């Protein structure tokens, strides 16, 4: 049980430094996401063209000086549309991730810490929702019932939450049995204080990683929905929709479909890798 002397000597500053210096994968994926976030915030100012401006006479062209990524069938600038699409591509998944994270963390902590009937009822619902073919239901619901992106985002958050509740709950249940949590109860600390001050920090790595995974899943699912022509009206500058609209142009201007496809892929990959690294780092600390 004795701590290795080496670990003790490397106290304070030195260790904190080593812990906070990010690796190349973290830097790269973090940088990519930051760049995309910048595009989402300021993309419309930087874009060379109005993303909706058509030039029917021009039609689909390959990349050139005027249009760096070429144009689509209606002569719209692909680069400008990609920049404009960053906003919806990142914003809605962010909303889903934050919503899912907030709901699953609070409900999972509650169920895992209180147990009893709250837990029993919640777990029945969670089991049912998890067993559903979720994305299928989502496609059908949003597709048939309409209602646009707002409903899609809400439905997605509801869809993603049960799985995370289960994870948070089981971690909470494991933590609450540990001696430090029992000691906190013995001291008579309040329920909220124990849940959020004591248990939450110890499951935080999973919560953070889970939020990033939800972000990725939502990014993929939402662009998938618009790829299927569901959720967003035709003509909206959106990566998924651009792939769908331009996949017939692979021989005329492949970039019109390939660039948004690559963007979705890169964004999802970067967020996944960042989540993975963050989890390792946080749980290591």
């Amino acid at each position, binding site marked *: 049980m004795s701590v290795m002397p080496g670990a003790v000597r490397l106290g304070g500053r030195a260790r904190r430094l080593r812990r906070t210096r990010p690796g190349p*994968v973290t830097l790269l994926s973090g940088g990519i996401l930051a760049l995309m976030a910048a595009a989402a915030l300021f993309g419309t100012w930087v874009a060379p063209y109005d993303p909706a401006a058509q030039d029917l006479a021009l039609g689909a062209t390959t990349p050139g000086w005027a249009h760096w990524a070429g144009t689509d069938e209606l002569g719209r600038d692909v680069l400008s549309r990609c920049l404009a699409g960053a906003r919806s591509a990142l914003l809605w998944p962010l909303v889903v991730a934050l919503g899912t994270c907030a709901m699953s963390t609070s409900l999972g902590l509650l169920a895992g810490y209180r147990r009893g009937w709250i837990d029993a009822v919640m777990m029945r619902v969670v*089991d*049912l929702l998890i*067993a*559903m*073919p*979720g*994305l*299928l*239901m989502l*496609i*059908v*619901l949003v*597709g*048939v*019932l*309409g209602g646009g992106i707002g409903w899609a985002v809400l439905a997605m958050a509801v869809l993603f939450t049960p799985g995370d509740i289960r994870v948070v709950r089981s971690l909470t249940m494991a933590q609450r049995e540990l001696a430090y949590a029992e000691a906190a109860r013995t001291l008579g600390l309040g329920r909220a204080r124990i849940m959020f001050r004591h248990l939450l920090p110890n499951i935080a790595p999973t919560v953070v990683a889970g939020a990033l995974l939800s972000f*990725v899943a939502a990014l*993929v699912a939402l*662009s*998938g929905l618009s*790829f*299927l*022509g*569901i959720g967003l009206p035709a003509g909206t500058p959106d990566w*998924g929709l651009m*792939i*769908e609209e331009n*996949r017939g142009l*692979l*021989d005329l201007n*492949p970039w019109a*479909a*390939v660039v948004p*496809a*690559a963007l*979705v*892929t890169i964004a*999802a*990959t970067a*967020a*996944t*890798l960042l989540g*993975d690294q963050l989890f390792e780092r946080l749980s290591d600390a």
Partner: protein
Amino acid sequence: MAFVARRLAAALLLLGVLSVLTYALLALAPGDPEQVLLGPRPSTAESRAAVRAQYHLDDPLPVRYAAWLGDAVRGDFGASLYSREPVTRVIADRLPVTAGLAGYAIVLTLAVGLPAGLAAAMRRGGPLDRGITLSALVALAIPPFAMSILLLYGFAVTLGWFPVFGAGETFAERVTHLTLPAIALATGQAAVVVRQMRAAALDLAGQDYMTFARARGVGRAHYWIGYALRNTALPVLTVGGLLLAANLTGALFVERAFGLHGVGELLVSAVGQKDLPVVQALVLMGGAVVVAVNLLIDLAYLAVDPRVRHGAVAA
């Protein structure tokens, strides 16, 4: 046995909820049910009356649901609002393409995923492990439709190795036509298998009973088959359900991207056209398949793990 009964009851309950939700689609869809069910047909007094009679629209909701469910259980989902053909025949026409695609993808998934996961576990922490783990993370993140476009552009358009659209006629054509779609579909699933296999193998390698078996001289064949294979079977089995769900939804995107006329594409176009009978039938069938496979996995647990058999732990 209690375990089987409980699982069966849960499966039935799930199917029940799913069918209610599916049926509720009709009530929730924008517009009158009769208007929805008329679809693109001209709306006359006679046609309205015919639809009301055919779908029991004048009966109270529970009765309507019961009648619909009774028909559905017998395989009668009505006729497609577009092609006017029976829904079951429409689906049956599309099934071979999807089955071929899914089967191909599963083969690729297992052929790549299991050995890669095992190799990563055996070379734990080494460059091979890091490479495989990183690739799996990337593969996990790539959406199937983006993967499809990138594959199409790379291998079909630029290199010209594979056809761009369609499913082909002869078996050989089928295989070449379905190769890229199957890869697109298998990428994410293989990543799941790699991660699960690696975790299961690592967990197993750290188990005391594995060391103990070697320490008392258990033979090599027995060690690998009776110990390693049998004990990793359980955690790897659990991915089966995940894989299937991924296959079902992934097929939607991949078929669309590659212009394959499969069941997934049928669902997407039926949703777009608000062809409710087709949508209802597909959702219910998809749900039934997922539920059935999960039930099979539970039963497999029962067969392999004595602790589940004796009710000592839950599966």
